[in-house]
């Protein structure tokens, strides 16, 4: 037990250090302020609509939908940008400014260092998501007079979607010398992750009789099975469309643990790739 505590002590201190440094990054703060402004603006826009339409239950629902649509899009876009930006930059920046030399010359293994950095990134991503979600919840609550508990499930799934992208962006960043390539890589992963579902169609439509066609079909099938499928997390939008006070439908509730495990499995895979790349990296 004591050995395990000792082992994780170093990563924990590195994670806190990463968090403290990360939350001060100007780009990140800029993204966060922008996203909060948009969420805040959605509330005012809905108020304006309310005045012009004369109010009432139907209008309140329309307002709620407007706020949800704007906020979900904002959280998805800015949250993902923050996730990619921070995941792509923490390791290359430390290599560039030589902090990694002073840390790795201490009794800290590369595995522990990466674990600390990755945990630190997740703390930043979670804090940003929590802040944006809190404002979102307040906006909905003020419009609909009901605490939208279901949105918390949606936020949870959003985090696991971010986690998958973050882990693979982090893995790319461990082989890079600057944050540019991993940032592009992160955006690419996000894009691919949302297109994985189409690979299934490609494999299903391939003609087994034609060699080239069959080969493309098999490759598409293999990619579909290995690449993360971010569309699986689209259930979160289904949750958003429900009445905020309604209970979570059973079929959605059953999927949540599987999606969490799915996200964690890909996050662990991303971390393993990151370590495999970093363990013999010449610094």
């Amino acid at each position: 037990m004591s050995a395990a505590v000792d082992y994780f002590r170093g990563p924990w201190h590195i994670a806190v250090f990463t968090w403290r440094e990360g939350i001060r990054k100007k780009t990140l703060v800029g993204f966060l302020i922008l996203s909060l402004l948009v969420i805040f603006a959605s509330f005012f826009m809905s108020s304006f609509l309310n005045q012009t339409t004369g109010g009432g239950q139907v209008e309140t629902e329309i307002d709620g939908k407007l706020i949800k649509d704007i906020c979900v899009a904002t959280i998805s876009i800015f949250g993902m940008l923050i996730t990619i930006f921070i995941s792509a930059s923490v390791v290359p920046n430390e290599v560039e400014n030589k902090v990694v030399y002073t840390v790795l010359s201490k009794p800290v293994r590369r595995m522990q260092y990466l674990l600390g950095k990755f945990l630190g990134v997740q703390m930043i991503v979670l804090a940003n998501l929590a802040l944006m979600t809190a404002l979102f919840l307040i906006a909905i609550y003020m419009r609909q007079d009901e605490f939208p508990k279901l949105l918390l499930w949606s936020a949870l799934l959003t985090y696991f979607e971010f986690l998958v992208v973050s882990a693979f962006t982090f893995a790319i960043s461990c082989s890079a010398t600057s944050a540019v390539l991993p940032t592009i890589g992160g955006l690419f992963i996000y894009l691919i992750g949302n297109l994985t579902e189409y690979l299934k169609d490609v494999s299903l439509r391939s003609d087994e009789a034609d060699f080239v066609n069959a080969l493309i079909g098999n490759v598409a099938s293999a990619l579909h099975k290995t690449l993360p499928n971010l569309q699986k997390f689209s259930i979160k939008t289904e949750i958003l469309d429900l009445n905020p006070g309604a209970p979570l439908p059973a079929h959605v509730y059953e999927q949540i643990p599987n999606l969490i495990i799915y996200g964690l499995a890909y996050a662990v895979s991303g971390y393993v790739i990151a370590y495999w790349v970093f363990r013999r990296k010449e610094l």
Partner: protein
Amino acid sequence: MSVVIETKGLSKIYESSFRGQDVYALKELDLTVNSGEIFAYLGPNGSGKTTTIKMLLGLIFPTAGSIEILGLKDIASAKVRQNIGYLPEGAYYPDFLRGEEILRFYGQLYGLSGKKLETRISEVLEEVGMTHARRRMLRGYSKGMRQRIGLAQALISDPQILILDEPTTGLDPIARKEMRDILARLRDRGKTLMISSHELLEVELISDRAGILYQGEVQKIGTIDELLTDRDLTIEVESASEEVLGTLAEKGITPEDKIEGKLILRVPNDMNSYDALNICKEQQLNLVAVAPRRETLEELFVRTVGEAQNRSTT
């Protein structure tokens, strides 16, 4: 005196990606650093100093050869890492942190905590003369103060070995002198210091041994006294005409400097002192002073690197 760092046949080759020539950053380096000494690791840019240091710290990996630190081959082991402090050249420390917070972070990485950590932070801040600025944000630090905090983080675990990469570069003369005094004090307290530097005058003042590296190979290594054996004579005279200087130069006596109107002549070390004085007398020069002169580390460095360059081009 025990050996604390030893490399045998240590080599580092960077393979060319495009079928060009491989780059030999280090060629079969045999190096020892003894306990309790200041070892100056010298060489021009790109000679392999930082490559060696990075290999000692496990930041890059040798192509061939071995490294032993404190008698252990596993240089990543906790015992080795606990006993090494490293100050990289031009390292960055976050501006938003206070001096003591930086040290707390690095101390925690060594497993220090609680009262022991706080006591140690106070000790190292005292050691590097930064107690007065412990609660100040790093953004308010001068370059010299940042360098001292860098040294403090290297000292936080009270390591036996300190590896310092350019510890005085970019510092003003007063800060350099203060840093030199700190390093000398550390040596006097029994620490082993390996210093990579271009500030040869500084290094000569405090080092016990030195090694000069060029293109990945050690050109000269030894104690400062062993290395600086070339002693010659300087003769200070009132003045000399161009004609007289020409005559002296033919005999190997060359003007070295002019201080307050007096001319300093340098006599080659293979010339007898009496012969040199007789030559000056023949030329009717007014002698002011005669003094023995030892070659400086800077001169040795320039001469050694020049010789190595000549060898590599022929």
